[in-house]
């Protein structure tokens, strides 16, 4: 599938570059791993000899997507996912950069392990992979990691992954120290005491199923605490996964006050709700749990308004050993790398979101926040590009997905639109049909 490095011209495409608010029909030329030019009417005449020309009529050409939150099993849980299989899934989903999380075994809390992951990705992955490093050693929430050395080793941000740092003093010190290195702190906000043994958002659905509930306040309280610490320290802070209307109010206040604050929402919370947990289907068990339809709609609106900066997959591969269990005992998490864009297109097709807003939240915004060169179609930028047919109807079959684990909540879903080509540094890494 990997083509040689011939120049490639994509013609007659709807070119969307959210980094510059551009949306026009034209051509894009890439060569030597970078974007040479994207404009109206480059045409076959104006390209070097040997250029491969692909007619992209009725297709969208956009920057390759950057998935800001993917849990990948390497190192330590390669039976669930490797960097190689995750990257195959990414390419098929139009994602050219994966941001992996430090919740591995061993934990990514040491520069040597961060280095290992990057080397391993270089050898086995067909898309770019950048790790976030642990914020505290062993993800234990007690001692901060070597933020300076880890950043120098290539960590693009610092997070305790799916864990929350409960101790406010530890969080304050980490934020203060991180500010000196201009490091981005990413935090999963869920108060573990309030969450306790809860497995589903509190309310009628949980009560009827006899499952212990979690109030949305468990998230909002932790976020509110964090944002007061951000006010105290001036650090750069990113909320890893915002899911409810209450948190949006808190977030809006912090943004209005001018703090360096951003937030992401997972594709699951943008497209599914608590009512989907029928018959105790564990593929719909995620963390934080799926919320009410009111919360979901508020989240989509916040994305449209720009209050939510980033849409991420929250990819979390789980196999039958961890999922084919009673709901309360099953592990949370859903795979999402390959389906993130397709699921997101639902919001575009139903008219609640513009395509450029969706693509911005999946490419140029994460690039800005993480200081990555992708997420744009500017001349000279890396030729990380996705070509999308926005209208093609299809039905998802979990067995066709490239992830090692098949725990998708979208199995047998009717979808409209899919990725038809993905280029990383000017090479084709995925071709549909």
């Amino acid at each position: 599938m990997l083509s040689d490095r011939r120049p490639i011209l994509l013609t007659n495409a709807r070119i969307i570059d959210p980094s510059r608010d551009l949306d026009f029909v034209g051509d894009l030329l890439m060569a030597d791993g970078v974007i040479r030019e994207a404009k109206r009417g480059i045409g076959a005449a104006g390209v070097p000899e040997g250029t491969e020309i692909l007619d992209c009529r009725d297709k969208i050409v956009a920057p390759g997507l950057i998935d800001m939150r993917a849990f990948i099993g390497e190192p330590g849980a390669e039976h669930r996912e490797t960097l190689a299989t995750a990257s195959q899934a990414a390419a098929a989903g139009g994602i050219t950069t994966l941001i992996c999380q430090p919740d591995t075994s061993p934990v990514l809390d040491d520069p040597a392990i961060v280095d290992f992951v990057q080397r391993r990705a270089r050898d086995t992955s067909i898309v770019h992979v950048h790790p976030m490093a642990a914020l505290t050693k062993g993800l234990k929430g007690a001692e901060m990691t070597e933020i300076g050395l880890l950043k120098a080793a290539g960590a693009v941000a610092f997070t305790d992954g799916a864990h929350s740092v409960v101790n406010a003093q530890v969080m304050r010190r980490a934020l203060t120290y991180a500010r000196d290195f201009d490091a981005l702190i990413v935090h999963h906000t869920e108060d573990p005491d309030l969450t306790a043994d809860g497995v589903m958002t509190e309310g009628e659905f949980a009560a009827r199923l006899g499952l212990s509930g979690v109030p949305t306040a468990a998230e909002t309280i932790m976020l509110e605490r964090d944002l007061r610490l951000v006010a105290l320290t001036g650090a750069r802070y990113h909320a890893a996964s915002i899911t409810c209307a209450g948190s949006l109010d808190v977030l809006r206040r912090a943004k209005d006050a001018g703090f360096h604050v951003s937030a992401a929402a997972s594709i699951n919370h943008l497209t599914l709700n608590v009512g989907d947990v029928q018959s105790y289907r564990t593929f719909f068990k995620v963390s934080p749990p799926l919320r009410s339809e009111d919360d979901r709609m508020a989240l989509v609106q916040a994305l449209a308004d720009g209050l939510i900066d980033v849409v991420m997959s929250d990819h979390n591969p789980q196999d039958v050993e961890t999922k084919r269990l009673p709901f309360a005992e099953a592990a949370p998490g859903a795979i999402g790398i390959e389906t993130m864009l397709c699921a997101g297109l639902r919001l575009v097709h139903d008219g609640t979101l513009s395509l450029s807003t969706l693509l911005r939240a999946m490419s140029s915004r994460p690039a800005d926040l993480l200081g990555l060169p992708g997420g744009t179609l500017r001349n000279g930028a890396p030729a990380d590009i996705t070509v999308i047919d926005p209208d093609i109807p299809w039905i998802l079959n979990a067995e066709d997905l490239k992830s090692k684990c098949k725990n998708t909540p979208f199995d047998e879903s009717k979808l409209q639109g899919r990725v038809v080509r993905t280029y990383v540094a000017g090479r084709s890494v995925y071709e549909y049909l």
Partner: protein
Amino acid sequence: MNIAPKSAFVLHRPHLLGIEGLSPDEITGLLDLAEEFVELNRQVEKKRASLRGRTQINLFFEASTRTQSSFEIAGKRLGADVMNMSVSSSSIRKGETLIDTAVTLNAMHPDIIVVRHHASGAVELLARKVDCSVINAGDGAHEHPTQALLDALAIRRNKGRIDGLIVVICGDVLHSRVARSNILLLNALGARVRVVAPSTLLPAGIDRFGVEVFRDMREGLRDADIVMMLRLQRERMNGSFVPSTQEYFHYFGLDQKKLSYAKPDAMVMHPGPMNRGVEIDSIVADGAQSLIREQVEMGVAVRMAVLEALSRNLPNA
């Protein structure tokens, strides 16, 4: 022996996983069939042959004395071969998963598996993996359908009806599968259902269950026809959900004084096992208004009815 019951009621479904989804006709059909077994069970010759040749496995992942023995007696009186399997004496402790256990038992060709499990939804999960009928004998805080059926039978025999009665469910509704199944069943048959509990023992969203919610027991019991007490687990008494057993009994324990707010002919129920002096006073539990022992008797009859009605739907029945 072997005289067919007058009721030819068949439960046209493979499993009994909960009250949810049962129609009022199905509930009434089961209760009518159970009435006949009440009579049978009071005779010297209690045995029938309608489940002869059938194998019934009682798979209990959670300790239970009365439910398990009730299902065992019910199956044996209908002529089934009954095997009891409980967690302490099985490979589940050795790490075998619920699904593995289900698949293993399924390979032995049972006709009916009766399951109790500590996790909500576990029985439904197991039912998807086996070819036989599955009866839910209690899953987590979700449902306990045969308890609700036996409660309904006891109520109907004493009050002559269920429609229009005021039934008050008191205590730990949050963790109670008995409460959930009873609310569903009593609402389906037209009772007016109230719940009485401290707010820490009520689930969020209880107001959407079609019940009236009371925090004051005397108000809640006013004009009640039936007072149904729930068990409060010991680990929930000391500061986690309520401050102490003393305080709980003071406000929510059923004694004669509180019972006097209900109708004079109100009946008192408890699914057992009781914590005497915590949720119920011994004088009330053993008093003239108590239906608690009758509930146990109805339990066997209702479980026979469920086994019989489900088995009539089995292949080759």
